[in-house]
């Protein structure tokens, strides 16, 4: 018999949001009412899809006839496992609203202009060091109807595939210093403050391109295996 492979580690307390978070109204009718059932991980959970041949779409500023409007930004970082191992050849899908705070989506009713030269869609495959890089524009804040006069802080949606079904992650990247962050129930659904701050990108002058674009660094860290030594804990 072969040795049983190590499972993916349990999330540390406070890192992941709960299902029910009443301040975010949409959770009230969608959060399960029963406790989740325990699952002993098997080959089904420690395997997952791979997407090495997906075409990349890493420049969101030149998807139309002209240039997208707004502040050009570079969003780059590394995809890692807990413990720090880089995850190469992984698919990252990204979507965002435009500089005016409007999504190219039929359900977006916000009275702000669409930009004919901006779709807000990106896709990257991490390189051998687990790195990715997008050129896009700074998304605007936009109103939503969660409570009266509520506004979402500027954010970019990330969908990330790690090595396994168990490491799948969808999240949002925010921007440093945004005054809407302390008021946002989605951002604040993460109980642990340090974990919450990991959703906020860092302005990185070394990533900025002179006379062209501002650089924001955002590393994404996925669940690691239980046997993974935490290099930070040494």
């Amino acid at each position, binding site marked *: 018999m072969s040795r049983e492979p190590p499972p993916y580690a349990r999330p540390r307390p406070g890192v992941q949001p709960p299902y029910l978070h009443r301040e975010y109204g949409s959770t009230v009718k969608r959060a399960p009412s*029963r406790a989740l059932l325990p699952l*002993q991980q098997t080959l089904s959970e420690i395997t997952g899809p791979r997407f090495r041949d997906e075409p990349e779409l890493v420049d969101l500023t030149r998807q139309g006839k002209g240039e997208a409007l707004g502040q050009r930004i570079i969003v780059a970082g590394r995809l890692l496992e807990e413990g*720090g191992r880089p995850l190469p050849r992984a698919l990252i899908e990204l979507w965002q609203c435009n500089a005016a705070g409007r999504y190219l*989506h039929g359900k977006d009713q916000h009275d702000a202009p669409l930009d004919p030269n901006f779709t807000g869609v990106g896709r990257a495959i991490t390189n051998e060091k687990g790195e990715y890089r997008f050129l896009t524009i700074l998304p605007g804040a936009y109103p939503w109807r969660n409570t009266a006069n509520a506004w979402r802080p500027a954010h970019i949606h990330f969908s990330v595939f790690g090595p396994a079904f168990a490491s799948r992650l969808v999240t949002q990247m925010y921007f440093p210093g945004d005054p809407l962050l302390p008021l946002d129930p989605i951002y604040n659904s993460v109980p642990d403050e340090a974990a919450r701050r990991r959703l906020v990108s860092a302005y990185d002058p070394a990533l900025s391109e002179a006379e062209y674009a501002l650089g924001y660094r955002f590393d994404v860290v*996925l669940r690691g295996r239980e046997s993974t030594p*935490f290099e*930070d804990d040494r």
Partner: protein
Amino acid sequence: MSRHAATPSQTVGPFFRLGLDRPEWNDLTRDGARGEKILIEGRVLDGDGAPVDDAVLEIWQADAEGRYDHPEDARRADPGFRGFGRAMTDEAGRYRFVTIRPGRVPGWEGSLQAPHVNLTIFARGLLKQLVTRIYFADEPSNDSDPLLTGIADPAVRCTLLAARQDGGAAWRFDVVLQGKGETAFFDL
């Protein structure tokens, strides 16, 4: 503090179609998979029984011989089978996958699990994904599957069983997020 601590999940929101819509991905057989071709279809419903029209469902499953196309599985999987699918619900909360019926997959200590499809649900109002499994109601090995037999309440266990429609290729699997008939979700 740990520098390489996990990134928290955030909701996929209502506008994910923009970034995640890959219509061809709901057909896992599009490269000519071997095995019994089936449809898995159903609805996603909320705690009021109302259709959830903004959910994205992803499946991951073994091929007809129970093999995963992944380095953790030493066996060579069917190169014509994708293993992964994605579908989005329509205005009535309906989704549909075209796939093949998976084989039995290795479990713990040399055992075999009953055939199943791993399912992830993302939606507006879900701050992190829900995870469940789709089993096939007519499958004899369900009676010895450790996960299914470990669920004491038959009504809860029943929520994991897809039902064959009219003896054909279509299997029905509804996802009830909350309340009466709530689907069994797993703490992965």
